[in-house]
């Protein structure tokens, strides 16, 4: 079976390669959208599958 996207759990852990956007906080999303990460603020969750290219 293919990896189930969106299986990120409440405690921030994830069972899949990517996180669904709905499971990310605005801060986390901003980090993924930004051109650069900010030291100390990199999300612990994987990025959403559609944010791998800019």
């Amino acid at each position, binding site marked *: 079976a293919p990896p189930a996207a969106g299986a990120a759990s409440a405690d921030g852990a994830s*069972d899949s390669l990517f996180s669904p956007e709905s499971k990310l906080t605005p801060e986390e999303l901003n980090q993924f959208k930004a051109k650069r990460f900010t030291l100390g*603020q990199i999300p*612990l969750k994987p990025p959403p599958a559609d944010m791998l290219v800019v």
Partner: protein
Amino acid sequence: QRKGLQNSAEDSTLKWYKELQDSAAQCAQSFEQLNSPKDAQFGFTSLLWTQTKKLKLELQKAATIPVSQISSNSGSQLREIFDKIHKLLSGQAVVSAGRSVSTSQHPQGLDFVCYKLAEKFVKQGEEEVASHHEAAFPIAVVASGVWELHPRVGTFILAHLHKKCPYAVPHYLPPMKEGTPVEEYQRILGYRVDDSGVEGQDSFLKRMSGMIRLYAAMIQLRWPYGSKQGIVYSLFGRSFVVYPPLPRSSGTSRSESRLALVGSDAQHGAAGRHHITATLLFDFLEVCGNALMRQYQVQFWKLILLLKDEYFPRIEAVTSSGQMGSVIRLKQFLEVRYSER
């Protein structure tokens, strides 16, 4: 600035770490009881005990000898080794050194074999991959195959790995507490400490590299298959952390699927440990950096960028010149590997 982002995750990581350790400890205890002959209290050694001892030796041999036979020499041999281990874990009889043995011969047989096997994989990383980096892949091939079919072994692999190599646990090593004896702290950092003192730097780094490389190879190998592995993205914390994707094991909570490589940290009074960070990051990225890159593309690249722009200047500033080798090697590696982008 916001520091809170990582904290809750660290808590859940620690919880997960503890669960793994507990389940390994429980298992060890379950067959530990079988070690001591209860009957001995009555003044005789029971026949049963002697038999159990023999059986344990045979089971341990059946589990660990195949692992020690893994070499980069031949692919078909790996298949044979894997089959042997799989058979043993499935309760079938296997022949080792001319003797037939099976886990079904004792109620704790399977526990014992899972535990010893996992321990053996990690030790093989510590001893063999340490001196032959190329050995990481063949060992990882077998280990991840076993992990896939027998998740319990995977749980124990992680537990043993975390115990021997604290850098494989995604949390910051605690700063030295006042009053902690230095040797005790060294032990927390993963150094071997015995009567003759604390292990030398070179030997320590070699062992850690061996385990991290084996770990990275397992992660990468498990990657394309099945739905079982959880994947967690890589990140920076207050310094540098990579959370690689990770095979899932049954029996513990979901968050177990998060593994990480934590480079040790500047803000935790860890100056002087950067060469460890740099060494292990290099080991880790050399083995599975390309795969991470393919998977996470720009998000991975952003990490590398942060490494280059924020991390290197910081550690170069605080690393003593006698320990610059590892930092320069990592830098060099990143320049070459990721310059083509």
